[in-house]
């Protein structure tokens, strides 16, 4: 049986990450128990190597056209790997603080990253499924990694059950789509649709089920119920990693699937608009009642997912670029917010809004970062989040769905309330807690993301250039 030819330079990032993860697992056996930071450093090195290697990757498709690489994949991979690197840095400080630094954590993070890269580069439904499963299973274990903490185990189990449920939808949808079109290759499906060479009924049910499966991953309403519980229960560095990575990868997979539909996308648009509006509104409204910061950020991420969907459902290249910009802004902002939470957590891993009180007097620098993150989440200029919101609202106008933009405005308005509530709580109030110490790796991350948030707002062209997005 002939082995399909593989252009390794095209999948170089995947190879580095996955092979690196496997080798790291073995190397880690020889690292003594108290020196697990070395594993973190090695994992970071692997991620950076993959980031750099992306510049040398060739474009096209390989592995019987199941994996591809192009400008969009390059940009998204850069974002994913940057997010992973920052998460590893954050985890290397936060995990030892709570006594849960297990080397498997970094290996699992690399494996999850490999899954994300597969989702971004996949050109076949089989690859997309593989990527999703790799990502999900690694995340299930990572969520529960803080055992014997019951909250963490419970979150992990919830994620496993709901995630498997969602993956089941995805698999069934893929099966139906295969039945309708006779192929798993996205490009071939796209070619067959205009030619009427498919069973319409099965096809639409299949695509819808696939969207449900991916919807679970990116926490669109009504597939979002797992998000607050899992975000709250998981260890905070894992929450941070999950919230950014799985969204970016999940949405790019959705983009790949939607691009297959071509002009038939208009049939699905009302449904996608409904998903988007529901996510934006439910996320904002329910977040108001949350006292736990992690839950609040979980609901905020649900509402942000709605914004990204509003851009993606249009299907034009400009709207996909706007969505990627939004995901970038969202990534750096979320990492900033979670980084601050990680510094503030000592014994209590579930901080409430009250815990933020008087932060301005304790740690002015840290509260400045949190203020920047909150303002960026709310969409206040001149932050990256503002420009991102502006770009997605513009795409709504460009594609004639301005009323969805009005729903987005309403969601932002509601959102402003709970973000500003946290901001004001930070500025006023008193606290007797001693100023928190910021470890070095976290400091690096915090500075990097703060710069990114401000740059994204003042010089958005620099962000698009960094991602090498074609303008």
């Amino acid at each position, binding site marked *: 049986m002939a082995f399909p030819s593989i252009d390794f330079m095209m999948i170089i990032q995947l190879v580095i990450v996955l092979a690196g993860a496997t080798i790291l697992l073995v190397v880690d056996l020889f690292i003594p128990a108290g020196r697990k930071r070395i594993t973190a450093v090695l994992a970071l090195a692997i991620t950076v190597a993959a980031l750099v290697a992306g510049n040398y990757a060739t474009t096209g498709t390989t592995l019987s056209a199941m994996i591809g690489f192009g400008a969009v994949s390059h940009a998204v991979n850069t974002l994913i790997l940057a997010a992973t690197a920052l998460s590893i840095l954050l985890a290397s400080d936060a995990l030892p603080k709570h006594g849960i630094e297990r080397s498997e954590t970094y290996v699992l993070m690399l494996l999850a990253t490999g899954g994300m890269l597969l989702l971004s580069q996949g050109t076949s439904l089989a690859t997309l499924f593989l990527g999703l499963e790799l990502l999900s299973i690694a995340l299930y274990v990572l969520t529960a990694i803080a055992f014997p903490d019951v909250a963490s185990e419970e979150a992990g189990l919830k994620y496993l059950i709901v995630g498997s449920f969602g993956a089941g939808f995805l698999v069934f949808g893929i099966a139906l789509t295969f039945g309708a079109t006779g192929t798993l290759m996205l490009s071939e499906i796209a070619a067959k649709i205009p030619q009427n060479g498919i069973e319409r009924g099965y096809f639409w049910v299949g695509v819808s089920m696939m969207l449900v499966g991916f919807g679970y991953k990116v926490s669109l309403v009504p597939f979002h119920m797992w998000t607050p519980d899992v975000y709250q229960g998981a260890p905070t560095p894992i929450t941070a990693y999950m919230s950014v990575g799985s969204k970016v990868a999940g949405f790019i997979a959705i983009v790949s699937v939607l691009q297959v539909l071509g002009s038939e996308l208009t049939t699905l648009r009302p449904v996608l608009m409904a998903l988007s509006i529901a996510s934006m509104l439910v996320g904002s409204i329910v977040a108001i009642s949350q006292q736990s910061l992690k839950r609040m950020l979980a609901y905020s991420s649900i509402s942000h997912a709605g914004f990204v969907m509003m851009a993606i459902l249009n299907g034009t290249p400009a709207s996909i670029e706007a969505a990627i910009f939004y995901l970038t802004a969202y990534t750096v902002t979320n990492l900033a917010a979670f980084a601050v939470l990680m510094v503030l957590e000592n014994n209590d891993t579930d901080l409430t809004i009250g815990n933020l009180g008087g932060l301005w007097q304790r740690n002015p620098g840290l509260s400045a970062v949190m203020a920047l993150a909150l303002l960026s989440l709310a969409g206040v200029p001149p932050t990256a989040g503002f420009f991102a*919101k*502006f770009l997605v609202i*513009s795409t709504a106008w460009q594609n004639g769905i301005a009323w969805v933009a009005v729903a987005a*405005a309403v969601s932002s308005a509601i959102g*402003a309330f709970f973000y500003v509530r946290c901001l*004001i709580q930070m500025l006023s109030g008193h606290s007797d807690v001693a100023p928190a110490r910021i470890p070095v790796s976290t400091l690096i991350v915090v500075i990097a993301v703060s710069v990114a948030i401000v740059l994204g707002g003042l010089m958005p062209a620099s962000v698009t250039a960094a991602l090498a997005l074609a303008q």
Partner: protein
Amino acid sequence: MNQLGFPLVTLLIAVPFVAGLIVLLAPRHAYGLQRGIASIAAIANVVLAVIGLVSMAPVAGYQFVDSMAWFPAIGLKYAVGLDGINIWMVIIATLVMPLALFAARTQPHDRQRGFYALLMMLSASTIGAFVAIDLLLFYVFFELTLVPTAMLIAMYGVGERKAAAIKFFVYPFVGSIFLLVSIAGLVILTWQQTGVWSFDSVALAGALNSGAVTLDEQVTHLLFAGFFIAFAIKTPIWPFHTWMPQAQAATPDHGAVDIAGLLLKVGAFGFIRFALPFFPQSMSWAAPAVGILAIISIIYAGIVAFGQHDMKVLLSYATISHLGFVILGIFSQTVEGISGALLTMINSGLTTGALFVIVGILARNPGGRDPNSFGGVWASAPRFGTLALVVVFASIGVPGLNGFIGEFLSLQGAWLSPHLGFGYISGAVLGIVVSAAYLLRMFRTVFMGAVSATSPVAEASKSELAVLGVLVIAMVVIGLYPQLILQSMQPSITALVSGISQP
């Protein structure tokens, strides 16, 4: 580089911003240095603004434009400039800063560094909002004014400062988001019809009025609605005003934040600068209804001011009442009306600023901000009382002082306007009577009658009298010779009105 050879307008924004940063980074205990930097920056800014005023040529259109590409892919530019409409707003914006710093001299030293830094940032963002030509740049500065003010209220305020700060930020922010949607819509629809990406307000207004871009009437009204909501909340017009009294009740007693906050009239300015050139038909269509809201603002705010036990809240309602005249003037879409509106905004800055200084001086005494706890201040502080009386008269609109001209021109504009008319004048005039009532009542309660035993007030210090004296002189000068201000505005306003008048 513009005609002057140096980026005057950018400096107007940059000087307070950089000064704010320097103050923030100054050593914690270098109180004199912090105050010195802030004062120098404030005075330098006044000088720059005056240079701008005297160098301006009496023509319509932007001068001293600083322009730089920002995000070329969507036609976004950093473009700022001065013209007849915003030059006096900028002058007032810069003049208000030394006044605010003067009022803030009673701020406790150990809490003054952040306070001065935030005041400077507020100044920078308000001036930026006044001078922005690019729509999105205006939006950025418009939003940015909320952040330092909310921080000032939350960190340095009194009373219910947390709730006031949240409401202060969220309520106008909600309106602004709809402005963002409208801006995006306007730019995208223009791009779809002309193929040009541009956020330049002059270019967009030109395209809309010349017919290069034709929009469905419904769409125009909806876009206007976004602009209206944002500016109506920010101005504020009744019934969107509730954030303001609550916020002003929570600001520090000395009144520095309120004085600086007078510049948040960017809302009313936004109507003149953007809503009017872009959507004249929608504004005509909305004028009758908005006129009624303005009349209600004038009268209702006046009546509510009557019953206030907090002088600061009384003044905030007085501001709302004055802004009702501004709105009437703007929606009249006549040269007189718009001139009157701008003049009233300038006057409001002067007189209400002076009133806040007076309240700040009074609030240092045991009586605090409650007018009923004072009495006979005129007897114990004669010079202070006299100056206060003149300021009160100016605020009411007594002829010979500045308030009268502004209100008169606004009402004249409303009368001459084809969209408003005589009926609105009667409502507004009633409002003038009401404002006389509550202001004179406050004056009588505080300054006249028997000297209060619980809260005697000594004569104001020489510096306080000097500052009030300068303000009073300005009020008298403008009142007797308003042409001083009006002549620089005339060309731009005439061009604006003729550009939007229906054929």
